[in-house]
């Protein structure tokens, strides 16, 4: 049931994002796209990550993984494998940016933790 729940959670998030989001953006332009983020991601995050429909032991897998695969595979099913191959350069450069971001964010968290430890140490001294 854990795996089935997870698969359903990933699939539903992907279905909403890769259909309704574009419809909001087409109907209302850039504000429609912004609002779609609020309307869709809020409740999907609550179900998948806050209530933990997506069972996730070990390293964190965001529901974005299901959304990402849904969007790419939707177009591969519709347009054929060549569409997917043509999109690999974008995927590769997005992945490079993402890896750099993950490394950088963890380094910043470490810096913040040291800063906060120094602050609380300072408070201890004053006490």
């Amino acid at each position, binding site marked *: 049931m854990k795996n089935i729940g997870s698969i359903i959670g990933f699939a539903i998030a992907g279905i909403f994002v890769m259909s309704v989001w574009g419809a909001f953006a087409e109907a209302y332009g850039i504000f429609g796209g912004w*609002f779609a983020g609020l309307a869709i991601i809020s409740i999907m995050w609550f179900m998948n990550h806050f209530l933990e429909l997506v069972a996730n032991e070990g390293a964190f897998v965001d529901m974005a993984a299901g959304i990402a695969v849904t969007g790419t*595979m*939707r177009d591969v*099913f*519709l347009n054929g494998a060549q569409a*997917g191959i043509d*999109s690999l350069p*974008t995927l590769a450069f997005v992945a490079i940016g993402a890896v750099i971001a993950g490394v950088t*964010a963890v380094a910043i968290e470490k810096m913040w933790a040291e800063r906060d430890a120094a602050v609380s140490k300072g408070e201890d001294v004053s006490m």
Partner: protein
Amino acid sequence: MTLPKIIATIAGGFIFPFLIRLCWGALVDKLGPIGGWIAAGFIVGTTWTLNHGVGLIYQSGAAWIDMAWAAFIGLFVASALSGDDVGKGLGTVVNAILGGLLGGFILYCLYV
């Protein structure tokens, strides 16, 4: 892809997981679940306007590469670097791929 498009796409891939990793948990810690609603609007919605609204992430082919790919990869890397178990996480990745295949197929049925 030309060099300017490559630089723009890497930047788009960087910004989304960077904001999520640093801000989402902090918002939920401070505000509870409503912090997730604020994060959905002001992290995901606002970053969408940049990456897809004005198109910082360039699409080289006809299969959509969503900024969600960046969130998935960047957050998984960050989690692994903080000491979380990669092997156990990969089991969830398999479920994500299965869910994504299912979702993609259902949308194929919608649009075909």
